[in-house]
């Protein structure tokens, strides 16, 4: 599109629906052009509408122009020492079925930066919704001046009061580019000497200057969505993203976080997206689209116009406009951008990424936040770690209980008991996980919190009690014992264990006083610096272990029972006792079956959703502390997918998590099934 009569276009922007473009050229004319037919629907000379103090000696022109980051304003510096801000928005009305877009403009606002009315160098300006504005510019003397117009609304009268403040300071080096964040609290500048300068602003007053060396001369500077990340383009073609990082001495410093491949020429323009952390950059004759968080070059190609002077990334991030062309400029090229999931890369899913506001690269899952300029953090690593943690603690309980219980049932128990035991285990398997999760989260968790010492005590006391009970049972006369079927003692142990649990609960306080100085949680924090959450991995381990036990039990019991009788009989005939037969003959023979039982139990624990959802705090943190919560892949899906818009990055990432779960369980189950089939064949040969 050629804009008739326009000189060098220094700034441009477009409406949300990409029907109109607004341009500002160096002669000071703001135009709005309808893209459909190239017709000019609005034009106004911003410089004519003003009357600066003393009449300018020379013809005033705009020396530099920009669209402040994340705003719908034109800003420009004039050759008579002022900074101009003009609102350039669009309103959309609906007439019938059609959409009518009209420019929504206000007269320009001028801030006098140089009282001497000399031309300005590099500048930056920002304006907020109430009209409070800040302008910073390099004066002809090389000093930096910051002017702030504070607007205060009187709540009672509804009147507004304006207050102007001005500050002037020295600047090290010649500033070539400058940018202000949307909150007007930070001013960044790049110098010819390759330094990045950063002043915090307090009510328009620059604070302590911090300098970071970037190497080559800074040629382009802009802030990405959120106003924290600074995209820096340099004369040697270097393109990078910087943000403030807390140092060890608790001060903040700018650091180069993300780096992109060297560009073919000096970076001329950088335009941020208003949707995500991607940005466009023109360097030499190359136009590129980059995504900051994932260090990702999404696309590069030749710029459609030579000599680009302004670049704009459309509000819906579906296109871009580039101004430039020829000697005089005045041309605009339109680009369509289809950039659906820039934040998802292998690195952002599985690698450590340095996010805004973090001290170092990290694995983080945080898919949504309070404001929409949040940087989505979609690392699956903490979720996978959480899944493994939950699985580990539940298998810690389930494997011994399941396998040894099954071994006892099949090898040391009379079939009479087995007939009743199997249904009990099946009932155990059928208990809905939502009930287990409920019990774990609301009943068990608060009690564990109070009686953690009892649990630890139980680990030692319960086996001892069982041994004691077994010894006593053995001491009974053989004639008496012989009246009961084999394995009766295990039924007795149920009562013994119940007694033991009661005993441990009673001794809990005393044990806590003795071993943990009266307060387990304080002791834990002091001795190991581990925190204690109420809904933690121990609770999950118990509940999920309970859910996995019957699965392991059933398959292991099958494997034990199907060991051919002739092997057992042979071993016993050779003089081995029952225990020796079981450990030396039955166990090795059945071990593949036990392996597959564990695999299937593992698969169940990995995919279990409700228990984890209800019994942990669902905090996606990575730590192996058994007294912390965690979040698993499956619970994460259940929590987030109702909120994820269909087809979006989060939706797809969650489906990837689902695929991951599927693949893990698929592999585990296939291996287990193959092993079981092999085992069956072997049994039939024995």
């Amino acid at each position, binding site marked *: 599109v050629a804009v008739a009569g326009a000189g060098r276009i220094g700034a441009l922007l477009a409406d949300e629906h990409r029907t109109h473009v607004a341009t500002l050229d160096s002669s000071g004319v703001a135009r709005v052009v309808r893209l459909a037919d190239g017709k000019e629907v609005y034009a106004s000379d911003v410089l004519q509408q003003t009357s600066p103090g003393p009449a300018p000696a020379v013809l005033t022109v705009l020396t530099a122009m920009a669209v402040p980051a994340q705003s719908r304003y034109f800003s420009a510096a004039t050759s008579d020492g002022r900074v101009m801000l003009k609102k350039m928005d669009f309103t959309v009305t609906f007439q019938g079925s059609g959409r009518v877009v009209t420019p929504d403009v206000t007269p320009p606002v001028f801030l006098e930066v140089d009282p001497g009315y000399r031309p300005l160098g590099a500048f930056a300006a920002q304006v907020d919704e109430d009209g409070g504005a800040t302008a910073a510019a390099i004066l002809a003397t090389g000093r930096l001046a910051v002017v702030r117009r504070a607007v205060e609304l009187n709540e009672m009268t509804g009147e507004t009061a304006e207050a102007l403040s001005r500050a002037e300071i020295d600047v090290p080096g010649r500033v070539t580019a400058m940018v202000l964040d949307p909150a007007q609290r930070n001013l960044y500048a790049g110098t010819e000497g390759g330094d990045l300068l950063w002043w915090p602003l307090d009510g328009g007053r620059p604070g302590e200057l911090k300098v970071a060396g970037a190497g080559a001369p800074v040629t382009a500077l802009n802030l990405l969505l959120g106003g924290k990340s600074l995209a820096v383009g340099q004369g040697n073609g270097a393109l990078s993203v910087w943000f403030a990082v807390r140092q060890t001495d608790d001060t903040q410093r700018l650091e180069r976080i993300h780096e992109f491949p060297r560009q073919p020429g000096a970076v001329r323009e950088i335009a941020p997206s208003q949707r995500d952390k991607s940005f466009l950059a023109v360097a030499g004759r190359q136009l590129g689209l980059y995504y900051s968080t994932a260090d990702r070059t999404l696309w590069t190609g030749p710029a459609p116009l030579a000599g680009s002077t302004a670049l704009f990334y459309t509000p819906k991030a579906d296109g871009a406009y580039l101004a430039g062309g020829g000697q005089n400029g005045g041309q605009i090229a339109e680009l369509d951008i289809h950039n659906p999931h820039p934040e998802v890369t292998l690195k952002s899913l599985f690698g450590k990424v340095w996010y805004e506001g973090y001290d170092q690269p990290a694995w983080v899952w945080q898919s949504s936040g309070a404001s929409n300029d949040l940087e989505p953090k979609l690392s699956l690593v903490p979720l996978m770690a959480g899944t493994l943690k939950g699985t580990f603690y539940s298998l810690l309980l389930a494997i011994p209980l399941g396998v040894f219980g099954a071994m006892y049932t099949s090898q040391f128990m009379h079939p009479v008991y087995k007939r009743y035991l199997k249904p009990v285990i099946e009932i155990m398997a059928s208990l*809905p996980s939502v009930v287990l999760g409920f019990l774990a989260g609301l009943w068990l968790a608060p009690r564990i919190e109070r009686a953690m010492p009892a649990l630890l005590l139980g680990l030692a006391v319960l086996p001892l009690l069982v041994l004691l009970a077994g010894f006593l049972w053995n001491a009974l006369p053989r004639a008496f014992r012989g009246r009961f079927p084999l394995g009766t003692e295990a039924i007795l142990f149920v009562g013994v264990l119940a007694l033991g649990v009661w005993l441990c609960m009673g001794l809990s306080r005393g044990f806590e006083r003795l071993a943990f100085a009266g307060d387990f949680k304080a002791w834990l924090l002091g001795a190991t610096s581990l925190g204690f959450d109420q809904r933690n991995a121990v609770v999950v381990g118990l509940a999920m272990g309970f859910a996995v036990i019957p699965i392991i039990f059933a398959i292991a019991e099958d494997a034990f029972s199907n060991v051919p009788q002739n092997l057992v009989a042979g071993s016993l005939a050779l003089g081995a006792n029952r225990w020796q037969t079981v450990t030396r003959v039955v166990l090795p023979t059945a071990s593949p079956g036990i392996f597959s039982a564990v695999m299937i139990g593992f698969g169940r624990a990995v995919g279990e959703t409700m228990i984890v959802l209800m019994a942990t705090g669902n905090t996606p943190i990575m730590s192996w502390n058994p007294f912390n919560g965690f979040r698993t892949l499956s619970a994460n899906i259940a929590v987030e997918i109702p909120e994820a818009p269909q087809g979006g990055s989060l939706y797809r990432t969650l489906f990837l998590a*689902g695929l991951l779960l599927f693949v893990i369980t698929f592999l585990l189950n296939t291996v287990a099934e193959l092993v079981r089939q092999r085992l069956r064949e072997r049994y039939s040969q024995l």
Partner: protein
Amino acid sequence: MPRSRDMKPRGRSEAMGRALTWLCGGALAFNLLLVIAILALLAWNGLGYFWQRDLMELDLRDGRKVLGEVWEVEKTAAVDRMRLKIGNRDVAGLDFAWIDGKDIARRSLPRHAVMLERLEWGNFYGTMAELKRGGKVIASGPDAVWKAFGPLHEKKREELAKIHELEQGGMSGSPAEDERLADRLTRMREQFSAETLVMLTADGEAKEMPVGTVVQALKPNELGWFAKLRVYGGRVWEFVSADPRESNTEGGIFPAIFGTVMMVFLMSFAVAPLGVLAALYLREYARQGFLVRLVRIAVNNLAGVPSIVFGMFGLGFFVYVLGGSIDRVFFPESLPAPTFGTGGILWASLTLALLTVPVVIVAAEEGLAAVPRIVREGSLALGATKFETIRRVVIPAAAPGILTGMILAMARAAGEVAPLMIVGMVKLAPALPVDGRPPFLHLERKFMHLGFHIYDVGFQSPNVEATTPLVFATALLLILVVTLMNLVAIALRNHLRRKYAGSAV
């Protein structure tokens, strides 16, 4: 002199073996203990929810008085305290309070203490003071009010039922009649709230409420065992038959029961042909080779896939793809508001059908395999074709096995929550999926579910402490249903095994 392992005295190794055996037995016993403990815990808390406890009045040392039901007493060396359900949420703000034993000056069970179950704000504990009609006192004093309250309350409940009936009737269409109806409703509502009851809390604070908003009034301390049992029965009935009140935290869970049952039935319709036909093919028709082995592994694998993954499949395929297409073809007028393109009972049942199909296949295959060869061969020898043999001989003989599979699948479906959370459950469905309006069966509607009810009320409600007892009752009901189904399936399977155990020669 060092001894090698094998030369260990036999006695020691035997004792060691015996000790380790006991430990294994301990592991088994611990499993049993866990099952028993969980069932007992659920039964105790779930059944206790309906039991009317005595109202205890405590005079505290600081002069305050507290009236409520004692729910928990903690008495150890360090702590001596009790948890009281004090109700009166509109006065005190909290349903439960911990009272320290050392603060209590006197305990008593006052005869006049009344418990009111209300439509709003939960229970009220206090004494009756006055009964008013249009501002005028018509009875005062605990006994007089109690006597007058009974008949009046009954009348009010009838009026309330009538109002609900009229409201449900909806608009007739003609404006004149609608206006008359509205007028009548307004008059009835006025009349309904004409009589008010003034209650006194234990501290003596007065609270006035319309008689009609009381669901039930009881004097727990005057009730005998038999009367309490009647109250108990009434509450159980209300629990399973009434609609929820106060965003699920009170009242019954009928819609959740209905939703669960209906979803399970819909699922059975989908899963039965799928599972049984697959099993028939695998067992009777397919050549047992590599491919069938592969299919078996796949079926077993399907059983091991996490249920949440099925939920995602249901969401991605059934809801968005199938439902979205149905919306575009049949309900374009209501777009972009989805009709089938959002979670609903149909998609939930289909998702669960996929989840449970391996259960049916495995059980049905087992049932088919148990049919003795002799029976088949006999049929074939008599001239029946293969299809006739399968239809007339094999399937009837395998029916218990197939039924077992179906029951197991239904039990699994009844307890599954995770996939349903994303394909169609809601905490409070405005209408049942079946009603009197054509087409009577609304497959696109969202529904309530017992399992989700547990999750939602137990974890998402603002007043978890007050609702936990109700969740226990719901959990008990769910466990009962699931366990009963499983026991029936196990019994059927054992019967089947015994039946063919001898004849399989």
